[in-house]
């Protein structure tokens, strides 16, 4: 941002100015991947990898910064993963390539990705990332240097994604069908182009041992989070995509009779009808339908983020989703979106980046945006109830994981944090009882430990006893009791029996 625009901002939006200054001052400087101590992670000493980093800067505006922040060698791994998928995307996107040419190219891309010196220069001249494919040899060279555990994941995801992309491209080319028909189609498409990215990244986290190994198998949530990001972009880019005759909104949503009926019109037949004058209301209802659909992924994303433990991985995942929530709240009930490209303000983005550091704050940001969305909703909207429920779900999630009746406080001297319970809340009674019981158990344990190292917990020992041994002891005890009882009877009978 130039000095002049910063000065203008100071006058027009002083609070945003403050946020941006804070961001510049306090946010950690970008990691220097060229530094000597980083070379083993970043591969900066190799010409091919240096070119890959440059290509990353060229092809990705929003991601290159966060990718470089990933801890240790994850930055390089994800950089290469990104470049491979970007290359695949550039072939899929290119409208100048005929289907006959595109199909074999897409379906073999996972092989090309690791073929030394493979390159492709037949992209249309307007394809913005065509240079990446021209120089693709550097990427394949670096991929082949990569640890096998990472390369396998990247290639596997590429294979799945190329198949999906080729299927969709083929369907569009052969049937002349320009629209995604059903919500299921839409979900599947988003799975191929974004859900798989989430799955791949998650497997990479696990492979790097920065996250738990089981996380790499927990792909449902990763997929859902990827889809949430993709769907948000698809909503925001409505005008741009429609002008380029690329349609990702499913007809099942925008073509709903219900939205037309609410305005006394027939259902939309074409996607471009939404930006024509006179259709404002119906377009907004269609947009609401799309937003409700994305909000369904919000708690999955929160669930996913709660499973992460590495700070750099957390930031990498959390920043895009909080941005997505902000974008959704910006687009919702905003007719400008049908007319031009809209995006969240720089200061808002900076503030999101600074706050996306832990699941609690992210959840609260989600909740704040959900409340903003809710505040814009009107009962006239056919999706009103679903919006209300979706926002309620986010509130419910926050309350479940970060209950409002618990207040964390830290003493002035900076000692351990303590919990305070809101006395008027119903949950406090049980929480206090549980706390008291824990305290008593703790004291009991301490007392026993002080008692000359007596066994800490007898009960647990007994439970761990093998069943056969247990039966043996029980049997012996039974025999003793039975035997002495019989003995007593015998004695009684012997001495008093005759009486």
């Amino acid at each position, binding site marked *: 941002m130039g000095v002049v625009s910063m000065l203008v901002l100071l006058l027009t939006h002083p609070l945003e100015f403050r946020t941006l200054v804070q961001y510049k001052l306090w946010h950690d400087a970008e990691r220097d991947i060229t530094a000597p101590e980083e070379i083993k992670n970043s591969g900066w000493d190799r010409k091919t990898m240096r070119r890959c980093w440059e290509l990353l800067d060229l092809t990705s505006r929003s991601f290159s910064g966060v990718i470089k922040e990933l801890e240790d060698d994850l930055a390089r791994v994800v950089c290469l993963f990104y470049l491979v998928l970007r290359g695949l995307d550039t072939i899929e996107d290119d409208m100048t390539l005929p289907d006959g040419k595109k199909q074999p190219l897409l379906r073999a891309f996972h092989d090309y990705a690791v073929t030394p010196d493979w390159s492709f220069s037949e992209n249309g001249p307007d394809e913005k990332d065509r240079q990446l494919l021209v120089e693709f040899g550097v990427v394949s060279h670096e991929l082949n240097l990569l640890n096998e555990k990472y390369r396998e994941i990247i290639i596997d995801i590429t294979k799945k994604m190329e198949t999906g992309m080729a299927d969709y491209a083929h369907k569009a080319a052969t049937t002349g069908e320009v629209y995604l028909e059903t919500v299921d189609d839409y979900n599947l498409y988003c799975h191929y182009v974004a859900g798989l990215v989430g799955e791949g990244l998650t497997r990479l986290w696990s492979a790097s041992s920065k996250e738990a190994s089981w996380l790499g198998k927990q792909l449902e949530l990763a997929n859902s989070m990827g889809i949430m990001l993709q769907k948000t972009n698809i909503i925001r880019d409505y005008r741009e995509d429609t002008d380029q005759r690329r349609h990702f909104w499913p007809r099942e949503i925008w073509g709903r009779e219900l939205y037309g009926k609410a305005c006394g019109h027939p259902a939309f037949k074409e996607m471009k009808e939404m930006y024509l004058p006179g259709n404002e209301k119906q377009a907004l209802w269609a947009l609401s339908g799309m937003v409700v659909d994305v909000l369904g992924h919000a708690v999955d994303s929160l669930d996913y983020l709660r499973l992460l433990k590495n700070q750099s991985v957390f930031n990498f995942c959390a920043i895009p989703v909080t941005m997505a929530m902000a974008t959704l709240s910006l687009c919702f009930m905003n007719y400008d979106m049908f007319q031009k490209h809209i995006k969240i303000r720089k200061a808002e983005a900076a503030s999101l980046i600074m706050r996306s550091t832990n699941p609690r704050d992210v959840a609260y940001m989600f909740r704040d945006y959900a409340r903003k969305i*809710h*505040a814009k909703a*009107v*009962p*006239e909207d056919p999706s*009103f*109830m*679903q919006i*209300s*429920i979706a926002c*309620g*779900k986010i*509130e*419910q999630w926050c*309350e*479940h994981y970060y*209950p*409002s*009746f618990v207040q964390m406080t830290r003493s002035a001297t900076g000692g351990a944090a303590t919990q305070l319970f809101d006395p*008027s*809340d*119903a*949950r406090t*009674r*049980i929480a206090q009882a549980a706390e008291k019981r824990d305290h008593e158990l703790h004291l009991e344990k301490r007392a026993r430990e002080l008692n000359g190292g007596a066994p800490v917990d007898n009960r647990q020992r007994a439970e761990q006893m093998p069943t056969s041994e247990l039966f043996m002891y029980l049997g012996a005890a039974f025999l003793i009791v039975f035997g002495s009882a019989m003995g007593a009877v015998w004695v009684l009978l012997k001495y008093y029996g005759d009486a």
Partner: protein
Amino acid sequence: MSDEPAPEIRYLVLGGAGFLGSYIVQALISRGDTHVAVFDLREPAQEDKIERVSYYTGDICNLDRLVDVLKETGANVVFHAVSPIHGLSDSIYQRVNVDGTKTLLEACRHPSLSGNVFKFVYTSSTGVTWRAQDIVGATEEQLPIPENGYDMYHHTKAVAEKMVLEADGDGMRTVVIRPGGMIGPRDPQLLHRLAAALAEKKHKVQIGNNTNLVDWVYAGNVADAHLAAADRLPSRKDLDANTTPHPVAGQVFIITNGTPMLQWDFSRLVWRALGASPADLDPKKATKIPRWLALFMATIAESWCKLNGGHTELTKFNVIYSTTTQWYNIDKARHALGYQPRVSLEEAAAMSAKWWKERGEKEHKARQASRRKLL
């Protein structure tokens, strides 16, 4: 959701002609049960009668009549879903909820039935724990029943609930279901109340700031929970075998749709379905009355009505009820009953609105006319 019922099980639904009761009866019939009987104050309208169900009428405080019906139907499972609506005189609640439940429990254990009734499901209400305070995602165990319920309705429901839980054991196992605010076709309260407010143009007024989430539940889902609870009570052969706390018998379950909504969103949605103009429902244009002011006004309105007679909807109860957070954690029912809300709130609201247009509105008008005649 429910297990395959053993064919010889016989069901009696008390209050089966009422709102929730009719959903329980329908659910039993729909899953193929053949021995279903209803006991209620009066028979339902001809069009509301469900095929293959035998209807009995009588008073829940009449022990002899109850025993006769239990004998005649051979009931093994009793659903007690009798409950007068909220807002009637105190004596009715004492008589029906307390005396009625006591009589019914006695009837079920009557020696002449020789232990034929061995499962008892009681429909309580989330209101039994309500103390006019916010309830935020709380569980059954976190919510104690207050010494004195908020009003006679809630108090007597709580007393009855306690009697039912104490009756668990000795040849008959019992369970309590506490549903949240119910909606669905044939609803006798919520839609009528909202329709009345709409007729009086009160829908443009919002009390409080609409930040309180509230749980609702589709009556059919509550019926599902009743059946699931009955199915999961111990079978006759191991009635008393289990001495440790049983996961279902002697337990209380909160049942909601698990999707809380903001209070006024829900009302506005229903008003919209009832035909209010969208402009009138715009939250930004609503006249907002702060909670404290509304409480003050309600106090005056109520004393006025007490002195001069008449009826007001602006009661302290209604003000507090509509501005308080009230949503629950239903994990216990999900785990122990396998409960899963089958019908979403959207679907339930749409069905209710359809019913209202087809029948409810006419019944509402007829009811208003008869009230006017009484006055």
